[in-house]
């Protein structure tokens, strides 16, 4: 008799799934990876492979032997964490440090909370901050970009300060002298820094793809960039000799990478548009405060992590507007 499947409606489903979302983000990061390999050669490639492999292996081992639950290593989320983690470190970082960071990112940042979807903080940033605190020297010794047809694929890295580092240490004047205010070079990624963050063009290309595929929404990144632009713009207007023009703040450091690829992480960011605006605003403000007055030259990762922590509260405070309910009931 019972020949057919009985199930609740709806009986059709969109073709979207978690795996597709993750792989699309990975695909969107490929241009930035190619640019990184161009500028940082073998080091960038090696670091990426190690980091992705370490993240995936950590997740697999934990799921297999500790959780003993279903294996979800194929969903692409661990690979994405690995990729983002690699993007956030200097290319010449010793391999073992990256492995330690990967294990921490997945083990503590993600699996300790119950795996995908349960983590309050962006795992890649957890890993990055862990490394920054544990290996402060290695994590702040940045290689300079050097196109590989100049020096070769396996060329030794030449280290030097990042634009934000110069800004923190010596101020706007020195930065201009060192030629780090060539806007075009900066946008193309020909500068020092974490290898995934240097090329704004490649990152924005990937971000446009994600926006078109509706994987991310423009709200959060736009609010972050606007906040940073306006905040640093006001400072620049007040004192142009102390504070650099706002457009440099947008392309220096990891702001583009953070705004489009890490602040938009679905798991750790608010769900409603109003929540996203507050979230983005918070990230922008904290980033600028750290960059201008904090101890570190760059503050995007801290800003995102701090706002990650506030996400549950934001979600509670900004619920969607319910159809047919004129005023939200106050209790």
């Amino acid at each position, binding site marked *: *008799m*019972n*020949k*057919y*499947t*009985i*199930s*609740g*409606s*709806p*009986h*059709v*489903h*969109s073709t*979207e*799934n*978690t795996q*597709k*979302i993750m792989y699309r983000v990975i695909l969107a990061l490929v241009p930035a990876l190619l640019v990184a390999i161009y500028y940082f050669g073998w080091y960038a490639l090696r670091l990426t492979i190690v980091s992705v492999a370490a993240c995936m292996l950590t997740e697999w081992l934990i799921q297999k032997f500790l959780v003993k639950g279903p294996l*979800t290593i194929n*969903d692409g989320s661990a690979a994405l964490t690995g990729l983002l983690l690699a993007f956030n470190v200097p290319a010449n970082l010793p391999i073992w440090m990256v492995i330690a960071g990967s294990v921490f990112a997945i083990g503590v940042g993600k699996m300790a909370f*119950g*795996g*995908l*979807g*349960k983590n309050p903080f962006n795992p890649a940033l957890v890993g990055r901050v862990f490394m920054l605190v544990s290996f402060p020297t290695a994590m702040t010794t940045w290689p300079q970009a050097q196109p590989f047809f100049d020096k070769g694929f396996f060329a030794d890295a030449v280290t030097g300060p990042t634009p934000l580092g110069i800004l923190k240490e010596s101020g706007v004047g020195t930065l201009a002298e060192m030629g780090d205010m060539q806007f075009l070079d900066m946008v193309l990624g020909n500068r020092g820094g974490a290898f995934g963050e240097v090329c704004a063009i490649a990152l924005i290309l990937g971000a446009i793809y994600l926006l078109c595929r509706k994987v991310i929404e423009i709200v959060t990144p736009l609010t972050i960039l606007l906040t940073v632009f306006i905040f640093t713009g006001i400072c620049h207007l007040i004192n142009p000799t102390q504070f650099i023009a706002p457009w440099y703040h947008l392309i220096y450091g990891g702001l583009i990478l953070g705004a489009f690829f890490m602040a938009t992480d*679905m*798991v*750790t960011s608010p*769900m*409603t548009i109003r929540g996203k605006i507050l979230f983005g605003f918070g990230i922008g403000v904290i980033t600028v405060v750290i960059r201008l007055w904090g101890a570190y030259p760059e503050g995007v990762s801290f800003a995102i992590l701090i706002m990650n922590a506030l996400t549950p509260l934001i979600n509670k405070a900004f*619920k*969607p*507007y*319910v*159809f*047919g*309910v*004129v005023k939200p009931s106050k209790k």
Partner: protein
Amino acid sequence: MNPIKTFTKGGVHPEENKLSAHMPIQDFPMPKQLIVPLGQCLGAPADCIVKKGDRVLTGQLIGTAKGFVSANVHSPATGTVAKVDVVMDHTGYYKPAVFIDREEQDEWAEGILVTDELLTDIKLDGKAIIDKVKECGIVGMGGATFPTHVKLMVPEGKKAEYVIINAAECEPYLTCDFRLLLEKTQEFLMGVKIVMKAVGTDKGIIGIEANKMEAIELLDKTINEHKDLYSGIEVQPLKTKYPQGGEKQLIKAVTGREVPSGKLPIETGCVVVNVASTYAIYEAIQKNKPLIERVVTVTGKSVKHPSNFRVRFGVPADLLIEAAGGLPDDITDVINGGPMMGKSVSVTSFPVMKGTSGILLMTLHEAQDRRVTNCIRCGRCAIACPMGLQPFLLHKVAKHNDFDETEKNHIMDCIECGSCEFTCPANIPLLDYIRYGKAKTGAIIRARNQK
């Protein structure tokens, strides 16, 4: 043509798959025996007033409405009552039904006008129309089967400003309303006029999705050609977006008004009636013909001949499937209704009833159970929800039996459209849990109100 409108909040766009859109309605030949369930509406089943051996005429009353929210049931054919027994209907439960052994020729019950001529003179007044609608057992034929006469009774102190005809047919696959609009245009428009007269308004709006351009143009043309007959009726094209035909979404799209949470559509001055019901009202008022047949879409991706049939109630669904080219081998799910809100059935022998808008045969590929993964808190369900709810949250609190939280988060406002589950990338059965939470929460609220 009026500019296209839509509701503002949420919504999804599933593949339309209107495979049978160009198949004209065919009269379905009746089998030897019809099995007519007595409970064909949302409310209480009708009381049976015939017994074994009785001879019944086509259109004769065989079940009387019991209570306020209930509808009469009429004999769909001429014949002898073989037995009054139970039959498994689309819900999978055995329900009381009248089994009628049919005679070859239809002998219509007294007072029923059998004619194809368009009758344009509305003789009855508002009150009499509603009584007639009640007598003829008309219900909402979009699937919810709410008795139409209850809808038409405007409560004391309220005023109906608009009659809105729900011609959105936003469910994928279904084409029965579309075909009816094309083939019975004038009768349908007269039906709109009758509903307008019944509720006492001179404004009627037909809300229809823009993927049915043919029907929109035809309706516009007919109204313009017969301005005297159809004055006050307007055609409102709507964006092709699910759930455009949800009652609250339709009112919002057409008038911009929002039905307050927990209230009825009349609060916004709107009475919403389905296309098939409107046509049934025309037949009831002008021809005194009770509701004994409807158009049913039989469709599916691997069905040989997706079709639209005019079927008398009580015909087993498997005969319809047979007529549409037989049951393909790769079918795993049979749905009574559309793919978004229809109910899956375990057997294909269930009888066609007032709410059977379609019989959808789905393949494994289309309907397969996908692997459920962790919620990644993407919030897409909340974006898709046309009621502004947070399905991910409702799912979680319902799962934990926290019915205070479900109520606080407006679970009772859920219209069960399935947009959340449709869009979920983690394939979580959100609506299953929300339905469970809704049932439990509703029971708690009712118990509390009784105290």
